[in-house]
């Protein structure tokens, strides 16, 4: 076997390669962060997103397909609540005023659905563990951690308008915002539009840490994990509130032509989630 204790031979990198690599890093980060700003399904969301990229052999495909189907059936209330929340937000964007009470109610429904679905998620995790090989379990743990870290980067802290932000950059490009609009949008973000209370991460961190340790072992018992329902519910609430605050700051600076465009884009996120769910259930 080739020497595995040594680093890859990273020779001098020319400027063109460095630019291409930086552009690739940026594109990967932007796409995943935008995903995590619209997909608010808590720990279940991190798991199914990780399954999407864990890689299954042909001999595992049938079991993975069965897992996906069952996952989407049992997590349906969570996904439906997330889709409804995005729909409520899109309606407000199109109308030029986001109804905060309606959005908050939709967020609360999503969080409650995630808490209620957690026992079913535990059963699914056992099924997934039995399907995966040890190296895939380790990879899945890395991926769940990576999704949580990206979620934190995208949602944990209020947007600091003085620093580059992937979502601001993305939306500027997507809507063709003028410089003046971007400045006004950033001023709105700075003016207490974001939820300022700190995210209480400890309970969810403890759950993820326990999951990492247990899932990587040969004998995984999800019932031994600490309760994750409240923690998962908290990250759904935090992420969704932040998403709503982002659009609340953006909508007043948009032209009447830009509002329906943005509403359609938010609905497209919801439709994508709906299509994926229908596809899995077939």
């Amino acid at each position: 076997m080739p020497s595995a204790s040594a680093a890859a031979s990273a020779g001098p990198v020319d400027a063109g390669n460095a630019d291409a690599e930086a552009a690739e890093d940026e594109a990967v980060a932007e796409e995943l962060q935008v995903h995590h700003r619209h997909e608010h399904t808590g720990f279940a969301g991190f798991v199914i997103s990780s399954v999407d990229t864990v890689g299954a052999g042909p001999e595992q495909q049938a079991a993975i397909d069965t897992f996906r189907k069952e996952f989407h059936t049992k997590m349906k209330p969570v996904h439906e609540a997330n889709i409804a929340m995005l729909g409520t937000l899109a309606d407000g964007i199109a109308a030029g005023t986001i109804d905060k009470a309606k959005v908050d109610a939709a967020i609360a429904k999503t969080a409650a659905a995630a808490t209620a679905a957690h026992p079913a998620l535990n059963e699914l995790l056992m099924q997934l563990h039995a399907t995966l090989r040890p190296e895939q379990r380790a990879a899945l743990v890395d991926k769940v951690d990576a999704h949580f870290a990206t979620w934190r980067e995208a949602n944990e802290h209020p947007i600091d308008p003085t620093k580059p932000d992937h979502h601001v950059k993305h939306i500027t490009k997507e809507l063709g915002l003028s410089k003046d609009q971007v400045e006004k949008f950033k001023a709105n973000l700075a003016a207490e539009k974001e939820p300022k209370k700190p995210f209480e991460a400890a309970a969810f961190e403890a759950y993820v840490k326990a999951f990492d340790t247990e899932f990587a072992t040969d004998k995984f018992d999800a019932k031994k994990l600490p309760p994750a329902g409240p923690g998962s519910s908290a990250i759904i609430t935090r992420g969704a509130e932040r998403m709503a605050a982002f659009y609340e700051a953006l909508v007043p600076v948009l032209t009447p032509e830009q509002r329906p465009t943005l509403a359609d884009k938010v609905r497209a996120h919801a439709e994508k989630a709906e299509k994926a769910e229908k596809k899995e259930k077939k």
Partner: protein
Amino acid sequence: MKRSILVAAALVAAPFVGIAAYSTNASAEVIVVPETYVASYEPIYYNGFAHYLYHGHWYYRDHGGWHGYDHEPAVLGGHRGEWAHHWHHWR
């Protein structure tokens, strides 16, 4: 030229960050495999580890740190051409 790597033990506390210090060179190269990359790419499984082709080199994680190769294993080399298809697009 022989290059050896020291993977910092401290990386256990900082997953996805690998530091490679080359003994033949005064400068140290910091290798970072971003979380967004790990989350978005489907790895190649080789020798019991998930491998990611990042910035032209293969890396795998073991004991909390990232490791690579002096010489690319042929099995992994065979996957270079298809690697772009391992990116899962989230939109």
